[in-house]
C-alpha cells in the first residue's frame, strides 16, 4: 500500500509501512523525552514535571528541570539526529553499512580537531570539529581513491586513520594538565554532562539550517542506492552529488561531535535499524534521524540513572551499538560482501 500527496508545488508518495513506523517512532521519542525529564537523581512525579514546565514548582525543581535536564535532553535529541542522518547518508552513498562516519574515522577526526582547538588555542570547539572532520575526510577519501571510490578500501583506510587520530588525541591529552585531561577524556568517550541552552541552540539551529539541503538531497540519494551505472543513466550527476553528500554528512557529524562528543556507534547503528524497520529499500533518512535521537537519549538517560559511577553516555551507546555491528558484520559475511 502506498499513499500519494499531491499539492501544486509538491508531490510525494509514501508506503503505509513507512508512515506507520514514523508515527511509532515519534510516539517513542515523546514518551522517551517525558521519561527522561522525570527520571534522574531527583525524580519528578507523574504530573509534577508538567507543572514545573508550565512555571509552577520550587526554584530548585525549576533549576533541575529547566536549566539542567531540558537542555541536556534537547541536545541529546539534536546530536543523535545529526549522527543518524550523517551515518545514513554515508552508508547509502557508499552502499555499505560499515561506511559510517564513526567507523571510517570522521568522528575521530572531528574530536581530534575539537581537542586541538581547546588545548592549543582555547578556541572554538565547533570550528575545530569541522576542520578536523573535513581534514580527515580529505585524507581518507584521497588515500582510498583509486579509479573512483571503492567502499572496502574506504572502510579499511578509514579504520586505520581513525586509530591514528585516536592516538593523536591521546597524545594531546598527555600534554595537558591532569584536570583538563580528565574532563577531555570523558568528552572523548562522548558525554552530555553539563550541557546548557547554548549547546541546544548550536545543534538545533544547525539542523534547521541544513534541513532544506537534507530534504533536497534525499531524492537523488534514494536513487544512488542503485549502482553507479544505473544512477548515472537515470540522469544523476554522480560527482557533484557525492561531493554535496560528503559535505553535508561531515557538517552533521561535526555538529554532533562538538555538542555530544564522538559518541560511538550512533551514526553506525541508526541507519540499519531504520532501514530494517521501514524495509522499502529507501535510505530512510528521517527514520535514521529519529532512531539516532532515541539512541542518544536512551544512553544519556541511562548514564544519569547510575549517578554514583557517572559513566559517560558513550559507554551506553557502545553497549547498544556493539551488538548491532556484530549483527551487520554477520549479514555482510553471509552476503559475501566482506
Amino acid at each position, binding site marked *: 500500500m502506498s499513499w*500519494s500527496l499531491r499539492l501544486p*508545488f509538491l508531490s510525494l508518495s509514501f508506503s503505509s509501512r513507512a508512515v506507520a513506523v514514523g508515527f511509532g517512532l515519534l510516539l517513542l521519542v515523546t514518551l522517551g523525552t517525558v521519561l527522561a525529564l522525570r527520571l534522574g537523581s531527583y525524580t519528578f512525579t507523574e504530573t509534577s514535571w508538567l507543572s514545573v514546565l508550565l512555571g509552577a514548582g520550587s526554584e530548585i525543581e525549576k533549576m533541575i528541570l529547566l536549566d539542567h535536564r531540558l537542555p541536556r535532553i534537547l541536545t541529546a535529541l539534536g546530536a543523535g539526529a545529526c549522527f543518524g542522518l550523517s551515518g545514513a547518508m554515508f552508508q547509502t552513498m557508499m552502499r555499505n553499512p560499515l561506511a559510517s562516519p564513526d567507523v571510517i574515522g570522521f568522528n575521530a577526526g572531528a574530536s581530534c580537531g575539537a581537542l586541538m582547538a581547546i588545548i592549543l588555542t582555547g578556541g572554538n570547539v565547533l570550528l575545530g570539529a569541522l576542520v578536523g572532520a573535513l581534514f580527515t575526510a580529505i585524507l581518507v577519501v584521497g588515500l582510498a581513491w583509486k579509479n573512483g571510490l571503492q567502499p572496502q578500501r574506504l572502510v579499511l583506510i578509514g579504520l586505520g586513520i581513525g586509530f591514528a587520530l585516536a592516538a593523536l588525541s591521546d597524545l594531546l591529552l598527555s600534554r595537558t594538565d591532569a584536570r583538563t585531561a580528565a574532563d577531555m577524556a570523558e568528552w572523548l568517550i562522548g558525554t552530555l554532562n553539563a550541557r546548557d541552552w547554548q549547546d541546544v541552540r548550536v545543534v538545533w539551529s544547525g539542523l534547521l539550517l541544513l534541513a532544506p539541503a537534507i530534504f533536497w538531497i534525499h*531524492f537523488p540519494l534514494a536513487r544512488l542506492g542503485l549502482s553507479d551505472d*544505473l544512477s548515472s*543513466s*537515470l*540522469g544523476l550527476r554522480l560527482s557533484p552529488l557525492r561531493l554535496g553528500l560528503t559535505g553535508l554528512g561531515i557538517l552533521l557529524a561535526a555538529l554532533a561531535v562538538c555538542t555530544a562528543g564522538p559518541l560511538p556507534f550512533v551514526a553506525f547503528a541508526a541507519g540499519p535499524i531504520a532501514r530494517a524497520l521501514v*524495509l522499502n*529499500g529507501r535510505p530512510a533518512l528521517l527514520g535514521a534521524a529519529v532512531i539516532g535521537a532515541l539512541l542518544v537519549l536512551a544512553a544519556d538517560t541511562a548514564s544519569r540513572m547510575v549517578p554514583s559511577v557517572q559513566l559517560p553516555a558513550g559507554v551506553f551507546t557502545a553497549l547498544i551499538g556493539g551488538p548491532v555491528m556484530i549483527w551487520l558484520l554477520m549479514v555482510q559475511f553471509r552476503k559475501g560482501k566482506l
Partner: protein
Amino acid sequence: MNAPARLHAKALSVAFAKTPILKDLSADIPDGKITVIVGPNACGKSTFLRSLARLQKPDSGEVLLDGKSIHKQANRSVAQRLAILPQSPSAPEGLTVRDLVTRGRTPHQSALRQWSHQDAEAVGRALELTGMAPNANRPLEALSGGQRQRAWIAMALAQDTKILLLDEPTTYLDLPHQIELLSLIQSLNQQNNQTVAMVLHDINLAARFADHIIALRAGAIFTTGSPTEVVTRNNMEQVFELRCQIISDPVHGTPHVIPE
C-alpha cells in the same frame, strides 16, 4: 540518403590500462529498429554499448545524440531520451517492484515533484506492458530471475525514452524466458516505435529478433547489415572463428547457425 540516426558513434576509441578495446569505431543505431551487437567474448561489445550510453567516456571520438556530443549535454536531458539497462544491475534490499519502476521516472522528477500524475501513469503502463502489475508490491529479491529481469525492463520503460539500450538482457535466463523477454522487447519496439540496441551472445537469437546487426571483432566493426547479410558462413568463420552451416529457420525464415 536517409536522415542521420539520432544515436551515432563517431570514430570511438577506448583503452583500458593501455590495452585498446575499441579502435576508431563508427556506427549508426538506426531509428525505430532493433539493433543487436554481436561478436566473440572480449571484442568490446559491452564497452561499445556503454559508450553509446555515455557510461564509458571514450579516449577519442564521440557519441552524437540528436547531433550533439552526448558528453556535452546535461545528463538529465540525455536520460529523458535514452535509457540503458546495464549488465546484472543491483538494487537495495527490500525495494519493491513498484518502487524500482518508479525510479525509472527520475529524469522527469525533482525533489519537490516526486510523484506527478504522469509518473503514476508511466509506472502503471510499464508494469502492465511487462506483465509485472500482479507483482508490483513484492520485493525484488522475492522474484524469479525472469521476473526480476522484467522488473528491470519495466524500470527502463518507465523512463519513457525513444532509445533503449540493453546489455545482455537475457543473461541467467533459460531459453523459454530468453524468448519471452526478447518477444517483449520486440513488441515494445513495434508498439512504441522505440529504438532498441542490445548486446546478445546468442547469434541465432540475434538473427531472429534483430532488424540490424553490428558484428564486432577485436574492437572494430567487422560488418553491419540485416541478419541475412551479416549471418553468413564466411562472416561467422571470420568473426567467431566458427566453422558452420547456415540454414533458414523453418519457422521464422531468419538465418540459423549450425556449428560444424
